[in-house]
Each structure stands twice: as C-alpha cells, then as structure tokens.
C-alpha cells in the first residue's frame, strides 16, 4: 500500500543524478524507522551530490537516466481522527524531505485534507492545521517558511470515496507537492 501511495508523490527537486537510483531503491523498501533514517541520509547525500553535479552536468547520458530524487521520498503523511500531530513515520519521512528541500531552491506546497465525517468548514480548518503541523516541522528542520505554501482542501478531495475507516485513514492526510 505504501508503494502505491508513493506513486502520487510529486517532485520537489529536479536534478539529473545517478545517485538517485540508489535513493529510489532504498525508498522502495523503506518500511521502518531505521530504514527511513537511512533514506534521509541517502536523500541528503543525493541532494548534495546533485548540487555538485548539476553545475557542470550537461552530458547526454546523465539526462537520459534522469531520476527525480525527491519523487521517491514519501510525500503523503497521515493523521489520526480529529488530530493534527505527526506520527513517527511522518516525522521520519519529513526529515528526508527537509534534507532534500534544504539543499534545493524550489518551493513546496502542502495540501491538507480531512475525512468526510463532520462539517465541511471545520474539516477545512482541520486540513489547514495538519498542513501547518507539517510546515512547522519542515521549518524546524531548516526549510525557510517563505518557500512553504499551505492550502487546505478539507474533505473536498478524498483519495478514497468509500465510507469506512480504511478510507478515512487514507483521506486524513497532508500531501507535499
């Protein structure tokens, strides 16, 4: 399920780099805290390498195997019912995102979402609170707030349209774009 969800992740840095393949592999098997930490380290490494390579790299081959390093980091973070506190899994994934963002220049958009239960306007506020919790975490990790945009969609853009707990837990999320 995790891998499937990662397919919705969106790139935040676009740099041509071979090393990213390694990150891709690691992220694909990431399933625990330790692994996530490894991801974070790898992502930081990859991003640093990307910086170094990007300046002079215009050879055709590197373009051909261009892989989006950040695309393979978790970019969807999940929340409990009526809660906006980050889970440990979300924190680990955000550490990796923060590392990539610190070394990049692109802006990031955080879209907050809620499940369908309860009122729509309260859910808009809840989605915003969740997205802000992610923004705060990224800021603590050294990402400039001026690069972070927060938008809440409340319950208006569900991932799953069903009305059960598994659908709700997929819909209570923040997407990093």
């Amino acid at each position, binding site marked *: 399920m995790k891998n499937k969800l990662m397919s919705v992740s*969106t*790139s*935040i840095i676009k740099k041509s780099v071979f090393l990213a393949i390694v990150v891709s592999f690691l992220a694909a098997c990431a399933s625990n805290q330790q692994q996530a930490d490894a991801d974070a380290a790898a992502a930081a490494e990859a991003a640093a390498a990307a910086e170094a390579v990007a300046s002079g790299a215009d050879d055709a081959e590197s373009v051909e195997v261009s892989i989006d390093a950040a695309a393979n980091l978790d970019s969807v973070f999940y929340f409990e019912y*009526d809660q906006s506190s980050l889970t440990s899994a979300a924190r680990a994934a955000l550490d990796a995102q923060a590392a990539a963002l610190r070394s990049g220049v*692109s*802006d*990031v*958009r955080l879209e907050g979402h809620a499940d*369908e*239960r*309860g*009122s*729509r*306007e*309260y859910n*808009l*506020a*809840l989605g*915003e*609170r969740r997205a*802000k919790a992610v923004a705060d975490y990224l800021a603590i990790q050294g990402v400039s707030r001026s*690069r972070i*945009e*927060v*938008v*809440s*969609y*409340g319950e*208006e*853009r569900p991932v799953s*349209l*069903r*009305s059960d707990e598994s659908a709700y837990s997929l819909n209570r999320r923040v997407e990093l*774009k």
Partner: protein
Amino acid sequence: MGFFRTLAVIGAVLFSQLSTADLVIEVTDWVKDPTKIAIVPFRHKGAAIDQDMAAVVAADLARSGQFEALPRDAMYSSPSAADEVHFRDWRALGVDYLLIGRSSATKKRVNLEYELFDVHRQKSLIKSRVGNLNGQERAIAHKVSDSVYQKLTGIAGAFSTRMLYVSVQNNQANQQLYRLILADADGARARAILKSSEPILSPSWSPDGKQIAYVSFESSRPAIYRQVVATGEREKLTNFRGLNSAPSWSPDGKRLAMVLSKDGNPELYVMEVATRKLKRITRNSAIDTEPSWLPDGKSLVFTSDRGGRPQIYRVNLLDGVTKRVTYVGAYNAKASLMADGKSMVMIHRDESGYHIAWQELATGRLIILTDSSLDESPSLSPNGSMLLYATKHQGRGVLAAVSLDGGVKFRLPSPSSDVREPAWSPN
C-alpha cells in the same frame, strides 16, 4: 512546483445556463395521520401551457408530509367551479379538503382562478387568482400551494422558495466537475450558476435572496466570492493567505461573517460588504469557524475546538463576551439559529454517527432529528418548519429534508451526481 508557479486551473470557471438533471423527491416518512385533500385537474382554455399545475400543487402538498392527495383516478367528477361541486361525493371518498381551478392562457400570460373548500363544512375557504408569464406555471402552482398550506396549517408555505446546492461529477479520468446549482425548493428547474474543476462550497444567501456568497477554489486556493443571482455578476471578496471560508450574511444584509486564517489560525471576522472593512472577532489558538448570526445581528454562534473538541459557542459582537452553548456530546458543529433566536440546529455526533439535531438555547434541551450517520450542512426553510441537509445514501451524496417535529422526511437524490451543501433561500 509550488508557490509561484501558476497551478493550472484546468477548465475555466464559467457561467452557464445549461440545464442539469433535476433532483427527484422520495418521501420516506409522513405524519401519522395526514390531511386528505383532493386536487382536481384544473380546466384549461387558451394558449398551450407546459405544466399540469394541479399536479405540481399535489406534489408540493404531498412533499410536506402533512397532506395526502387523492389519486385522480379515484375521483368521481372533475369540477372546476363551485356550482359543480357535490360535497357528498368527496365526503364519501374520505376527503377533508377540495381544491379546484380554471386556468386560461395567452402566449404571454397564464392566469389561474382557484377555490379551496372544507368538504365537511361545505364551505369555501379561499377563492383567489394568481397570474404570471406563460412558462411560469410552476411558479403559479407553488403560490397556490403556499396559500393552501398557510390556510390549513397556519404556517407560511415555502413552496415558492429556491435552493442552492453543489453537485460533483467525476469523469472517467477521475477529474471532478463542481457545479453550483440553483433550483426550485422541489428540485425542479435546476440550473448551474457556476462550474469549476476545483471545489465549490459554503453557499450562503443574502437575506433579500438577491445575492449569494460562496467559497471557490478556482484560483487553486480558497477565496470568498459574492454573486448577484439574477445577472451572474460576481466579485472576489477575499483572497487572503490561508483559509477564506464559511461566509454568512448578517440579517441586515450589510455584513458578512467569515473565517480567515491570515493571522495564523482560523478566526472569525465580520466584513462590511460595501467597504470591505474587516473586524476581527475571535482571538484564540484553536479552530474557530462556521459563524451564524443571531436574528438581532448582535451575536454569532460558531464552532470552536478551544475546549479540545468541536463545540458551539456564542460571541457578543459588541463586548466580545464568549460563552459555550453545547455540552451534550463530543462533537457539535455548524449551528444555525431558528428565526426566533431561541433554538438552533446543528451537526451532533452520538455513538451511531453524525446527525442533525435541534437544541434549545436556554435549557440545552437536545433532540436528534435524523437517523442516518453522515449528516451535515443543515439549512432551515424560511418558515422554520423543515430543514434541508446533506447525507450519504447508498454510497452517494444526496440532499434530504426533515420537519422540525421529526415526523416528515424526504430525500432528493440526483440521478447523475453527488450533491451536497444545500442552502434554502430566505424567500
């Protein structure tokens, strides 16, 4: 990616007069002993008209749940004037009241003369006439329903009113099409007044029924718009960083209460519509949202989780004094006041889910009105006797209505889309 890149608003927002599938009414609960009324097909002469007005009246009254209309094939005769009425026949059919009428039309106008009788007392209760442009037969019929309903129940009818709601359709590529729909209160004559590929929510009527406010994400973030119903002319009122949500018109129509998070987290504000001057009402690190006016325009009720869970609070706009209003249950939200300001309806969660509930302010007495589990967006009828709300039925978003006494219920599903966010017009 992100901030300064223009996020494509796919599919421009556009006004449309396109007709859209009407909602269909399914009455699910009636009062125990509905009043029996016979509505005889109206005799017509002159230019052709589109609608069977007697059938519209019969459907209106049946939808109120308080009346049962005699089927036409059970009628012995079809009187259209008082001297053609044989009360004994109608009494034999068990009918309490009888409505007859005659219509005439030119290509431009339609007129209807109608008369309501008390069958038992053999007495005329209403003798009146109503006219409108040819093509407005439904409007004529709703006026007749209003006058019959008022005469027989003592409560002003709400059949001539309209509603707004949001419909959402997913196409095959799983892209959404959002429409803001304006329809008669019976779901007929539905037309889209706004279409967008981005969410539309929180439609709210001005008290004179001429303008609406709503939230649209068409710029890839929420903004509050105001729109003139008759012309479609509109303007963006707010576009602050963060939330721009939950617009609610003041009873005098000059102010809009709303929720903005531009100063950090969701707070209530009141905007003077003419000058766009904003006054901040709440200062609290919790979520404050869903403002709704008390009828005197001096206070708001709103939803806040400042106590840990969403509950309803009331704030006095003059001195800022704020008091908690709800204590029963762990989730109360989206309150709106009854016209007398003494009670309100809201979303209330109990162990079986999210329902629409009524609460008296002075006593805290709470009555749950609905029995489905994902009920939201209550909107009161102008006469306060019914409310519209949104729920899910068989996996689809549908509108539903319930009488405040809980006795009458009906659903208004759409044949082709998910519908939500009903707002009953004030007149």
